[in-house]
């Protein structure tokens, strides 16, 4: 059983295009996150959503927009893609209370040409 899934796993696109990455979790968690891992493997939080409400939004360009149709899904939309957006994007989920162990999806490798 897949706990946190992302589609697609690989995405290659041209500069200027708009793309989306989908994330779904079947763990019953109430909070979901998006992280970006750059070419040097550095992981940084981009967004988190709790009960369909944006909780944090780090210094991310407004070309990136998270969309959560329900608490099991958190999609990432990226407009006007730039070369610097090339990275691996991870979705994660957790409960808001307690340990808040975050379960990660398999990641989506985005390559912008």
């Amino acid at each position, binding site marked *: 059983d897949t706990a946190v899934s992302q589609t697609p796993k690989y995405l290659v696109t041209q500069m200027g295009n708009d793309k989306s990455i989908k994330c779904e979790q079947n763990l019953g968690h109430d*909070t979901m*996150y998006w*992280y970006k891992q750059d070419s*040097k*493997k*550095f*992981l*940084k*939080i981009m967004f*988190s959503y*709790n009960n369909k409400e944006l*909780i*944090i939004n*780090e210094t991310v360009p407004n070309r990136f927009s998270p969309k959560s149709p329900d608490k099991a899904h958190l999609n990432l939309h990226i407009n006007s893609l730039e070369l610097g957006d090339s990275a*691996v994007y*991870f979705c*994660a989920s957790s409960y*808001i*209370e*307690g*340990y*808040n*162990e*975050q*379960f*990660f999806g*398999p*990641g989506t490798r985005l390559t912008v040409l």
Partner: protein
Amino acid sequence: AQTVTQSQPEMSVQEAETVTLSCTYDTSESDYYLFWYKQPPSRQMILVIRQEAYKQQNATENRFSVNFQKAAKSFSLKISDSQLGDAAMYFCAYRTISGGGADGLTFGKGTHLIIQP
């Protein structure tokens, strides 16, 4: 803002030996969570071990244990009896308890662990 520092970009250990990965962090908070995540070449992020700052006892999970020194803001990971499957990037991570619990993790830059057969 909190920061997490992993000073060892790469470590190498012989199979069956013990290795310790270092992590220090900077925070003004008194309560928080600390984690070690493993990322093998498959790139899946796997939780290795976690520690609550208010617990003095060091966490242990089978061959993995931590040395948590709260005053020194240090959280090192010890891997005993290293196995080939332990080869991976290891990330130290911090999570604040304040802010309602929906905060993301703050990661260090990672340590690439190589296991020599």
